[in-house]
């Protein structure tokens, strides 16, 4: 029983990361109806921004070798700043890869290609500037906190993952409140529902789309920083795996559904944790098997709405 509880906690903490990541995908999908493939690269940018803001120096293989930010900021300051930096990158991606196509009313497939291209360019830029080496966030970031917290009955959780879980929970709560209570949140929902009607009602849909990109990228940035805190930055391709997993979560939860992204993330995280130890190397296959099954049984995802047929 304790073993099962431990596995559930492992699954929830991993799933929270996926959920946070997929929320960003969902926000953009809900307003544009397309998937932003550069999201993984923005997540990676967030991790690198966090590293630099914490005072980390660039390794020997990048163009910026040896350089570092003059101040070593505390984690609680560095993380939101890294999120803001990632939001700026998200806005850049929107301006370069989405806006020109939106103006021309281009096919959704073209958005996929341009966002994929923007993601590849970002990753290569990171490699050029920072080198391809692995980075560990500098300093004793947890201060006096132990690396692991005992939850009783032999169940334990890494402090970093508890932090990740808390931040993910807070971010989801704020996002949910903002979407449902604020005028901007409601405007975003209106654009998501029907962009043309929203425009006729006086909503600046272009600005709302930019806002969606900024929030999605901010979330990606802070989750990138938190994941880097947990497992280090393995190199410029660090976010690719999470990007693919986030895509699975998005489809499982329901395209464009924020609660669906959270539910999908948790389900995939727990499913991975419950994969027997002997098959643990195949946990990705389990995640994508869920996706496959969902596409067959319920194409709109767990909490997604079925597409309305227009006559």
């Amino acid at each position: 029983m304790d073993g099962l509880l431990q596995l559930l906690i492992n699954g929830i903490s991993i799933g929270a990361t996926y959920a946070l990541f997929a929320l960003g995908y969902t926000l953009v999908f809900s307003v544009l109806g397309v998937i932003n493939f550069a999201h993984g690269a923005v997540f990676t940018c967030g991790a690198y921004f966090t590293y630099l803001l914490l005072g980390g120096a660039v390794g020997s293989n990048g163009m910026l070798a040896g350089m570092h930010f003059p101040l070593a900021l505390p984690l609680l300051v560095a993380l939101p700043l890294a999120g803001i930096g990632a939001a700026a990158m998200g806005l850049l991606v929107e301006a370069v890869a989405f806006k020109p196509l939106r103006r021309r009313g281009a096919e959704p497939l073209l958005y996929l290609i341009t966002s994929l291209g923007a993601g590849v360019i970002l990753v290569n830029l990171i490699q050029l500037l920072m080198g391809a080496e692995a980075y560990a966030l500098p300093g004793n970031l947890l201060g006096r906190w132990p690396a692991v917290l005992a939850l009783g009955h032999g169940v334990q959780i890494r402090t970093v993952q508890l932090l990740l879980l808390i931040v993910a929970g807070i971010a989801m709560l704020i996002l949910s409140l903002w979407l449902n209570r604020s005028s901007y949140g409601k405007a975003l929902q209106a654009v998501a529902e029907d962009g043309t009607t929203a425009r006729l009602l006086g909503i600046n849909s272009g600005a709302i789309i930019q806002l969606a990109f900024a929030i999605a990228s901010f979330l990606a940035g802070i989750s990138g920083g938190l994941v880097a805190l947990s497992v280090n930055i393995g190199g410029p391709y660090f976010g690719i795996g999470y990007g693919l997993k986030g895509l699975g979560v998005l489809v499982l939860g329901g395209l464009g559904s924020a609660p669906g992204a959270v539910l999908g993330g948790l389900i995939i995280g727990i499913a991975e944790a419950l994969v027997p130890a002997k098959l643990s190397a195949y946990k990705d296959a389990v995640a994508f098997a869920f996706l496959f099954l969902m596409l067959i049984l319920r194409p709109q995802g767990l909490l997604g709405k079925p597409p309305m047929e227009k006559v």
Partner: protein
Amino acid sequence: MPQLMPSVKVLRLLPKWLLLLGLLASCSSTNSNAPVNLKAGLPVGAILSLTGNANVYGQDQRIGLELAQAAFKPGSSIPLNLSIEDGGSDEAGAINAFNLLINRGSAALIGPTLSQQAFAASPIAQRRGVPVVAPSNTATGIPELGNFISRVSAQSLVIAPLSIAKALQLNPAIKRVAVFYANDDAYSTSETAIFQKAIKAKALNTVTVQRTQLNDQDFLNQITSALRAKPDMVVLSLQAVDGGNLIRQLRELGFKGTIVVGNGMNTPNIYPICQKNCDGILIAQAYSPELQTDANRSFVARFKAQQAGAVPPQLTAQAYAAYQVIAEATERQNKRQPLEAKPLREVRILLNEEILRGTYNTPLGKISFSPEGEVIQESFFVAQVRMNPDGRSGKFTLLP
């Protein structure tokens, strides 16, 4: 129907385009029957993992090659004209780099970094008759890829069991062992089989075998499962980035026993990844910076001068040795039978024969090759990682 016309046109033109592409490709590659031009030195290529998750090895190796160039170029009658290509960390990257360097007329190749890449890319060199000296491929079966493939990196079969024996010597109470390996990596799967055999040979109990993947970053599930089996020792066959992450998480989750790692973690680049948790891990090595030979003293001095007093790691020493083997074989062959104006194909064959024939005083000690191209090396060592108080730097301390 009219809209189909362009497709038919395309189909008709396709064979011509393919022919043109073929012609262009053949024009861009060097004719192996053309006489070799040695004015700029003998062209030699190196394929290193400078990007991707194995880049931590490639960086060490690049330093070794640069030091070897500085050491052997002056005074040689035919200096090597070295081109380093990034082979990435996967098979496709290595194959592209091999093709590129072979087509540019390399007389010999050094690389690739990973065994997984070697199984895919080295057969290309074998088919084209280009000698390959592998500086870091330790999986079983590399020299068996063909008579043009040799290596200076002693195979895991020889080295890996030494660290198990040393761990038992340090702590005879070890009985229960947990094994981790990446099941999508040729090096890891090859080395873990050797480790598991050595564990069995020492009458230890393998309580769990946990499989991971090269790109995994979070090992909570595997570690939780392994710790439930209450192991006294954990044996890892993983690459530096995933292995470093796993050690960090393993220690954070409370494992206090012995950790033995394989050759994949034989680089100081693991220090920033597992940080203070790297302290105490055991690793068998094919190189000791403390080896008292002229070749090693000279190599260590060059490395320290370039790297602010740091101690050279094994991968750097092995890359240096790979270059040295080709440089010395070229010199000897050229004295025996001048290479100038010989067809490139013949130069490659002569060079391969000379590489396998020679004995070399390298930083690794005296080495030679079996007829299959397997390195014959005299000394091996077991080291323990000792981290400095900053938790970011450390060193491999050799155990007596």
